[in-house]
């Protein structure tokens, strides 16, 4: 798993590359925690490079959603591949988090 991060004022953008399972979810968790300063109120999780997700990956995404919601922040997802989209839908994640096609879209609308 490759994890890229970028902070823009109140927005933290996290880009993931690889497979999101128990092992890499742990890395994602740590990477987000590390950069989630008090000023951050918006988390954009770009899943463009994620080729696989299971329930552990799902749990890590929902965990970040819970965390940012607790501080009254928002979270959205960007551009997911078919396998990932299928799992997010199955678990109802897309009902609680908006999904955008691109980061630009996410930054404009979220």
């Amino acid at each position, binding site marked *: 798993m490759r994890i890229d991060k970028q902070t823009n004022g109140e927005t933290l953008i996290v880009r993931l590359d690889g497979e999101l*399972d128990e092992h890499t979810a*742990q890395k994602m968790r740590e990477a987000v925690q590390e950069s989630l300063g008090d000023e951050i109120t918006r988390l954009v999780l770009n899943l463009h490079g994620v080729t696989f997700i299971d329930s552990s990956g799902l749990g890590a995404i929902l965990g970040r959603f819970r965390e940012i919601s607790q501080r009254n922040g928002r979270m959205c997802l960007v551009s997911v591949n078919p396998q990932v989209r299928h799992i997010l839908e*199955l678990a109802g994640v897309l009902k609680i988090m908006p999904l955008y096609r691109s980061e630009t879209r996410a930054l404009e609308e979220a």
Partner: protein
Amino acid sequence: MEDCNELVLEFVSRPENVAVARVTVAALAAQLDPSLPELDDVRLAVSEAVTNATIHAYPGTTGRVVVRARLCQRRLTVEIIDYGQGIADIEQARQPSFSTDPNPERMGLGFAFMESCMDQVEVESAPGRGTTIRLIKEFPEVPAEDS
């Protein structure tokens, strides 16, 4: 067993090995020329079962995990075996959203995902006697192609 192709993979219950098990079984299943969604189903089901053997079977320690995968005609059977603490109430464990793990990021969706991906999911387990998960999936014949 006439024309079956079987493999056995053995490893230690570490989170980083879940990907290895997933990839190995997917490579065996690929011999059936499955569709991408079919292959994704196999990956997901194996990932969930091996993750369970990794996080639930040996609390506070690690142990051996054995994955036995077999192709017979167009049927894939995968057994994920651990020698850990076992499951006391299997019916309850299989319920969607049920988890014994207090961690709120543990979704309790492992068994639900296995069932949505495979044709059949069998669980053999008893407290102190380990767990065997048997995943079965049929791959319908596809029209012959140059491949």
